[in-house]
């Protein structure tokens, strides 16, 4: 029987492995130590090996080997050659070839991203920031409409790089940075809450799955 198969027959063996590795990573809170080093090196090594397997089974085999050798789709040779060009970086005389797939990826990426970005980050945002007559319906919508409108204007001014921030421009830009920091504060709190939930998940694993002290 294979060693890994044998290990899976031992009840809870992987829970123990997971728990000890979790504790080894947590030990970093007390500074660098041999336990952390073991966990770190194991993590990096396993992740690289795992990624190679994932790439082979999820991309290389279904997108290249199977269509080429089983489906007779010779068109996949083109992206395969483009992919091979990346390895040209290791051959001095052929290193120029790496620019071909990079150009392709960047060109494709820009072509797809630019209209989508314009649509979602500029056009929709402009529409959402415009002061509309519906905003005049009640005093609170008037106040919040003006607050957000000023926020947009001052924040955009902060990111204006063609003029030195002096005088009135500095005042407006400083208001903009206050808006940005308020936004960061809210985002910080929100994200920390999400991270705490990740910690709770790990503690649940240790206390429930490993030690069994909570249900």
């Amino acid at each position, binding site marked *: 029987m294979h060693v890994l198969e044998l290990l899976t027959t031992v009840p809870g063996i992987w829970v123990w492995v997971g728990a000890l590795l979790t504790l080894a*990573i947590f030990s970093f809170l007390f*500074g*660098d130590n041999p336990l*952390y*080093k073991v*966990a*770190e090196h194991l*993590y*990096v090594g*396993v*992740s*690289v090996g*795992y*990624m190679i397997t994932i790439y082979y089974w999820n991309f290389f085999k279904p997108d290249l080997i199977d269509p080429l050798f089983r489906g007779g789709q010779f068109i996949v040779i083109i992206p395969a050659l483009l992919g091979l060009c*990346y390895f040209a*970086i290791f051959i001095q005389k052929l*290193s120029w070839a*790496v620019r071909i797939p*990079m150009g392709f*990826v*960047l060109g*494709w*990426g820009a072509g797809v991203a*630019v*209209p989508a970005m*314009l*649509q*979602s980050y*500029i*056009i*929709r945002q*402009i*529409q959402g*920031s*415009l*002061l*509309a*007559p519906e905003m*005049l319906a009640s005093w609170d919508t008037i106040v919040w409409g003006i607050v957000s*409108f000023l926020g*947009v*204007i001052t924040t*955009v*001014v902060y*990111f*204006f*790089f*063609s*003029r*030195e*921030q002096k005088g009135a421009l500095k005042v407006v830009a400083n208001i903009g940075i206050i808006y*940005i*920091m308020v*936004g*960061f*504060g809210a*985002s*910080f709190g929100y*994200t920390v809450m999400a*991270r705490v939930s990740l910690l709770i998940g790990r503690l649940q694993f240790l206390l429930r799955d490993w030690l069994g002290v909570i249900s």
Partner: protein
Amino acid sequence: MMAVVLAVLVLVALPAAPDEVRAVDTPNDDGGSITVMWTLSADDAALSAYEVVRVAEDGDEEVVAVLPAGVSRCVDEGMPDGRAFRYRVNAVLGDTLRATSALSEPAVSRAQWFNTRRVNVLVALLLFGALILYFIGTARKGKKLFIRRIAGLDAVEEAVGRATEMGRPILYVPGLAAISQISTIASLNILSEIAKKTATYASDLLVPNRDPIVYTVASEMVKEAYAEVGRPDVFRKESVFFVSEDQFAFAAAVNGIMVREKPATICLIGMFWAESLILAETGATTGAIQIAGTDQISQLPFFVTACDYTLIGEELYAASAYLARDPLLLGSLKGQDWGKLVILLILVVGSGLLLVSGVKGLEFFRAIYEFFSVA
């Protein structure tokens, strides 16, 4: 006799059929769909449903949709392009009584080359594109384009000097994203400039990478930077290295590097995700000067909290242009600045006009709001 009576009773009980059934190729799509519209049955309120029936050229019929009363439109999707279909709509009363409409004129599904509902995107693309191309052209002609100093950049020179004095390396993490990300490209431009400084001072530079392609590009750029300042002999190939593609394995390894190598300066510049605070906090505990920069809005608060200097959003691109002094980057940044002015103008003037659209007789200004609707 009985059969005649039953037939009359059924006819009397039948609801009014939907009228004016029209089928047209769905506009602004990539084909494969036909839109069917009809006038509601006069007995709509009493109906249990409308059945939309597709009739092929050979007479084959298929119910493609069953819709509740009150609905007068249906998009029939997933059909072959170039074939004609006609449609009929049944008004259904109860479970069995159906009043059938006349067949529509045939409709053929086709893909459209242009989505007319995104004309605004085209206008914006042309406007911003023209501005950027104009300023790139201006920069290439040699005209000096002013870009204001950015706080985080002042620290770069100081940070390299500090590393040299302390005899410790500079750790530069070019983000975790692929080469196609704009922030990664901006980060690599900054890396190139920092590499020139470390080459000049003969300081150690460490560049761990998560993406294999970014690794190859970063390695090449650092090597070129060392050659450019006439110090190819100082370049160590192993100073730029690949770690792991796994996000947290990469973070764990970089944390290890921070506490073991004790770099004098840590640059976290590029695209970061959930590992941002892990890296920035660990870096802060080592006492290194930390310069961060990202356009990931959700990660910026962590960098602002834990790092000495942070390039916020577009400052990252500006920094890249400022340091590289490349006409392409400078012109692009300048073009974007003018784009921002256009946006400010639209916001101020547009808001004013939109507010007065509430006044009787000036409703046409509402079109400003509609122009920015994106389908």
